[in-house]
């Protein structure tokens, strides 16, 4: 059993607050992604769990044991560092086998595990090389292999695929998911790439400014963002936000009206794929400014009134820049936010 409990962990560097009372639970064998923009405190949280940074408050419990007083090596973890930290004075093979050698495992076992981890990360041909002679992506894979080789109960990864090209990243993602699922490794995975988080994680914790804004399954977070920030951070193109005013339970956008959860100023969150382009006479009036063919669809950029908006249309739709079209939203897939607090409004 190796579950992780992060209980009201806070961290300040001098006067600067990096984490404000963050709480998160990762079940045994679960894969949780910490997703958030640069500087939101992801690495700081991961380093506190690893024991490389001391929290200013709160506690971390791993496998039922409060690890606050334990040094990193006693916490039963492996870690992939954001800047790799691959030892320059050891060959790739020695790097990957480092953890096992520290555990004084038999030589044959070390060799076997090193071979296995290297194979999975497609770096078997690099085993005799020195890290200084590797590309950034290759070095990053050495760091991942080094962590996987020890077959840890808890794996902490800080943007482990950030330096790979798109195709390799896609392959590694699938491999990583399969291997970790099979081994039942409890994983905390830091990334600022939302597709990576969506694809890999059982649950995603979206962080912003030292706070976890929402925790949930990828689909749930995507469909029902708890805050305006989460809605805007997940999805590509990002969610559109339209400020409108509602009265009598109806929000008006141009000539178009939608059922709103409360009266007064409200903010509609609309994903591009949740609105169908229709004739100019119906739906939300949308002035198209730019049309970008993306292959699978057309990406339309324009405005509703004076508020910017992005929409998508079928690849063969005849839409010209400068045209006015209508967008018919799917009422079941809309999000509403309080424009003041940015929090989600639930339909009454």
């Amino acid at each position, binding site marked *: 059993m190796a579950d992780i409990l992060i209980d009201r962990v806070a961290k300040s560097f001098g006067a600067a607050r990096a984490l404000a009372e963050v709480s998160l639970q990762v079940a045994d064998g679960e894969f949780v992604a910490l997703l958030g923009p640069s500087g939101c405190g992801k690495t700081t949280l991961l380093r506190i769990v690893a024991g490389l940074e001391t929290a200013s408050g709160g506690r971390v419990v791993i496998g039922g044991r409060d690890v606050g007083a334990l*040094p990193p*090596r006693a916490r039963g973890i*492996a870690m992939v*560092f954001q800047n790799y*930290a691959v030892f*320059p004075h050891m060959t790739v093979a020695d790097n990957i086998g480092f953890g096992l050698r*520290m555990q004084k495992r038999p030589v044959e076992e070390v060799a076997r595990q090193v071979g296995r981890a290297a194979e999975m990360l497609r770096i078997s041909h690099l085993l005799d090389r020195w890290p*200084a*002679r590797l590309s950034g992506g290759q070095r990053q894979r050495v760091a991942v292999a080094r962590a996987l080789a*020890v077959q840890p109960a808890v794996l902490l990864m800080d943007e482990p695929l950030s330096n790979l090209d798109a195709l390799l990243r896609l392959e590694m993602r699938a491999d990583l998911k399969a291997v970790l699922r099979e081994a039942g490794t409890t994983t905390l995975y830091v990334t600022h790439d939302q597709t990576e988080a969506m694809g890999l994680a059982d649950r995603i914790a979206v962080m912003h400014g030292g706070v976890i804004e929402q925790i949930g399954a990828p689909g749930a977070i995507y469909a029902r963002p708890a805050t305006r920030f989460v809605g805007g951070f997940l999805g590509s193109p990002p969610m559109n936000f339209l400020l409108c005013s509602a009265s009598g339970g109806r929000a008006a956008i141009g000539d178009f009206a939608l059922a709103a959860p409360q009266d007064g100023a409200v903010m509609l969150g609309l994903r591009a794929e949740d609105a169908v382009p229709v004739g100019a006479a119906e739906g939300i009036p949308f002035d198209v400014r730019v049309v970008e063919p993306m292959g699978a669809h057309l990406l339309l950029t324009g405005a509703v009134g004076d508020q910017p908006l992005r929409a998508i249309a079928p690849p063969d739709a005849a839409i010209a820049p400068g045209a006015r079209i209508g967008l018919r939203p799917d009422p079941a897939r809309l999000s509403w936010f309080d424009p003041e607090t940015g929090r989600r409004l639930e339909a009454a």
Partner: protein
Amino acid sequence: MAPKPWVPYLLIAPAVLFLGALFLLPLVQTLVLSLQGEGGLSFANYARMLGDLNFADALRNTFLLTLVVVPVQIALALLMATMIARIGAGRDLVLWVWVIPLAISDLAAGLAWLAILQSTGYLNSVLFALGLLDGPTPWLTQETPVVLFIGIALAEIWRATAIVLVILVAGMQLIPKEFGEAAEVFGASPWQRFRRVTLPLLKPSIQSALILRTVLAFEVFAVVYALGGRNFPVLVGEAYVWQGENQNTGVAAAYAALIMLISMLATFVYLRVLRTPREQMA
């Protein structure tokens, strides 16, 4: 713009010229002096040096002192540098205090230790006060060679460990802290971390410190002179005596040439044995 291959050479030319004029030239002159005999080139000066009553002692003492002092200094400086690396607040103050001996000339350092170790010095006063001695006891004589040696070694260690410390502290600052952290996460104990990560990555700095300290240790003189005079002959001391008292520049030059040869050999060995291939640098 294509880089011009001669630019680097042009840039180091002033330094090379400077060294050539003020270092290489006197060096060659010393060699020539040491090889000048009655009628033309000869090894007479070297023969006289080898036959000198004090030569064997001086050679042995110099080597013994170097073999004891340099390893102790490296070990001590490593320990101190490791401690400094862990200090948060007050780190600069500790470092500053530790490198104070650097600011003291070696003769002054020798005299300071003389004040401690001479027969009416601080050490004896303390031992007398504790009832361990009956009266003034001389330590720095030919009859007490072991204590004399220890006294000189102590003074040298006290005086010149700081320069090693400075080199190692600078070297440690160049090692990204993530390497130590990664080792720690993957199960290395503090000792293993030092042994498997810090030490190998510090090798270039250790090499520099070893070369500097060894060369200087073979040139040890002022501290020895202050504490033991000629009770403890060393190579540079003999060169001084031949030049000053015996007015024989030829033999003095032979001593100087020998010291130079030993230093160059030591440097060569360090450069080979502690070589760090470029691809393994941090």
